[in-house]
């Protein structure tokens, strides 16, 4: 549609991006019937991918949150997290970057108690980076009940929620389900940021399509926030690239395309879910030592296999299977053609090393 529309050109977008994209991207995150949107207290900033959204949000927080230019506000990042989170907030000027407990290697699951303890102990007004769904790299998400507990503590401690939503739709296959945590926080009255990426769920990786959704107490606050976001965007990239945003906006505003997209997303998510169950069952059939239920318990693109660095080394050097030293594998790299090989290789790594 875009390619054949000769009325389109390559003119600059506004500084904050394509209006249709921003509004609809926020709508996707917060829901069609979001009261916050109805009340006009949601704003969007089109950014270059999820990274760009995180960075613009971080730059804004460093300038305007908890005072003016307060670089000492603690920023809490989950342990582990996507490595780039640390660099984003460091380069934005924050001096005190900490971790909060998240992954429990012993039980291969969420260390909820440690997480809540760290939140209770965090200085008031600290910023917490929360993965909205499909935690990277562990694939381990809090349950809805656990999210409720997290929200309770954050509210009591005046902690600022900064959601990183890179996989909406991709995790469970359902957009609404994957956005539950963000929407719950909004319903609880939080002001928050949500960095959205459309790299994975739209497959638009190299077009750099992202949106920073800002939820504030009221429209006036959000408008002033957006005006300051403009200044930050202007010195970072002046205005964002048009191509990818047009694609997403066109899709989200066309009922037919929107339905097709939701279906495509579910297809992608289902394939990943299939690979998870297939890998797990093969390992269990092989009798590979250890428990492998975490492979299907975890969600999204990644799985924290539990392989140790030596076993990972074996996988790379002997079996030519490339994965992260943390034992994280990208489930999308699995196909019906290589499942057997990967399963047997993991088996060898675990039994030999």
């Amino acid at each position, binding site marked *: 549609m875009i390619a054949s529309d000769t009325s389109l050109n390559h003119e600059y977008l506004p500084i904050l991006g394509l209006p249709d994209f921003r509004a609809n991207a926020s709508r996707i995150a917060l829901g069609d019937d979001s009261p916050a949107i109805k009340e006009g207290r949601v704003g969007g900033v089109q950014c270059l991918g999820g990274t760009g959204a995180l960075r613009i949000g971080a730059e804004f927080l460093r300038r305007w949150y908890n005072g003016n230019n307060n670089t000492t506000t603690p920023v809490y990042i989950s342990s582990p997290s996507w490595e780039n989170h640390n660099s984003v907030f460091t380069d934005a000027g924050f001096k005190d970057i900490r971790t909060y407990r998240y992954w429990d290697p012993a039980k291969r699951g969420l260390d909820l108690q440690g997480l809540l303890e760290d939140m209770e102990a965090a200085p*008031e007004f600290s910023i917490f980076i929360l993965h909205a769904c499909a935690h990277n790299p562990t694939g381990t998400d809090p349950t809805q009940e656990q999210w409720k507990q997290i929200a309770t503590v954050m509210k009591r401690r005046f902690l600022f929620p900064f959601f990183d939503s890179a996989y909406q739709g991709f995790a469970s296959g359902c957009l609404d389900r994957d956005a539950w945590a963000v929407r719950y926080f909004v319903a609880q*009255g939080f002001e928050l940021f949500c960095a959205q990426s459309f790299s994975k769920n739209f497959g638009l990786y190299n077009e750099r399509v992202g949106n920073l959704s800002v939820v504030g107490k009221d429209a006036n606050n959000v408008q002033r926030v957006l005006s300051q976001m403009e200044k930050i965007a202007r010195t970072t990239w002046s205005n964002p690239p048009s191509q990818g945003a047009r694609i997403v906006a066109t899709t989200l505003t066309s009922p037919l395309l929107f339905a097709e997209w939701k279906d495509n997303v579910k297809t992608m998510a289902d394939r990943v879910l299939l690979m998870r169950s297939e890998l797990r069952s093969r390992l269990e059939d092989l009798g590979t030592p250890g428990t492998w239920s975490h492979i299907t318990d975890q969600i999204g693109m990644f799985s924290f296999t539990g392989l140790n660095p030596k076993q990972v080394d074996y996988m790379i050097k002997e079996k030519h299977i490339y994965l992260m030293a943390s034992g994280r594998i990208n489930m999308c790299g699995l196909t019906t053609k290589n499942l057997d090989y990967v399963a047997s290789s993991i088996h060898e790594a675990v039994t030999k090393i």
Partner: protein
Amino acid sequence: MGRARGVPVLRLRPRSARLCRQQPGKCARKPRLRLRVPAPRAMALLQPSRLLGAATSRRACLAPAAARSSSWWSHVEMGPPDPILGVTEAFRRDTNTKKMNLGVGAYRDDNGKPYVLNCVRKAEAQIAAKKMDKEYLPIAGLAEFNKASAELALGETSEVIKNGRYVTVQSISGTGSLRIGANFLQRFFKSSHDVYLPKPSWGNHTPIFRDAGLQLQAYRYYDPKTCGFDFSGALDDISKIPEKSIILFHACAHNPTGVDPRPEQWKELASVVKKRNLFVFFDMAYQGFASGDINRDAWAVRHFIEQGINIVLSQSYAKNMGLYGERVGAFTVICSDAEEAKRVESQLKILIRPMYSNPPINGARIASTILNSPDLRKEWLGEVKGMADRIIGMRTQLVSNLKKEGSSYNWQHITDQIGMFCFTGLKPEQVERLTKEFSIYMTKDGRISVAGVTSGNVGYLAHAIYQVTK
């Protein structure tokens, strides 16, 4: 990824709480405001002029009830509208049929319409036909684009290219390139954090360098008495700049004045710069667009390099390829040798990754296809010359129309200046009259984008200017 020196190290704090510094101050009282809630479709940036001034009180006091009911953002001030892009927004709201937008520097054809280059359309068709995937680019961007971009600027026979003693990374157009450069210098240029800009310069230069943590200074450049280059003033100022400071030059088609040094003047500038051992940052946003000749427009850049000055360079393809919204640009660092270039590249990537991870592909693919296909490249050079020629033609027509109106002023500077912009010499009050009485929009400094002038409206423009200056 290795850690660069000077990059703050992650400190893992013990779990014990630290007392947070609490800000004293009264509870923020925000004005009670009920705004019309815009429909989601139109939830774009709302016009700042319609909004109340922000509460400038300090952040909310910390009694839990009060903190819960107030906003984190009560103290956030309303930012002023961007002076340049704000002009376009005001223009859009104007209902006068004769209105003219001479604000933002985007090329328009003789019908006042945006111009998509034919070579761009052809390149797009070629790219679409290949049905490539959308996998991430490397952090430094599309390699074929980077190489072609460096060759375009430096010349294919440049010794720098032959020896590989440079690194070029793809950037988010000119702004993104300047930003990477500014951050890189802040982190690695230890000799100075002072950047000398010409007076005046592009409005966005200052905030870009400032946000990167550098200090801004200026050297004389524009002479308002002649509407031309203040050569002696520039030489005088530059000869007094502390050694090893950073100095920025516009490679061609100076923005906003349109005033460029002549080649013999560039030679003297280069000589002074060498004597003072200054670090040179070239901003080249208009290669090809100024004179119509890409080699001529890059002459200053190439001359400085030939004089042994290892510059850094920002390039933009927004104007010369009309790729504005695709955000195509490049940042180049000339190094001592290829090995240094590799180290510099690794640090540039470390800067880029936490900013936007990797650049957008669409525009770079288009630019790369054009630069690397002989036919398309030839067509592009012709189209760039066409755009430049049209602008030169409009300058000539504007001057002759002003004479016809009966203006007694010397308007020669309009044809002496080059590129998209013209510093008319109009004062703010005159600019305001042009906007209010004639619906002609330009920036307050009297800068017009000649690209917004057409054979259809040049007479109206001349008439209006005459009215406010007679």
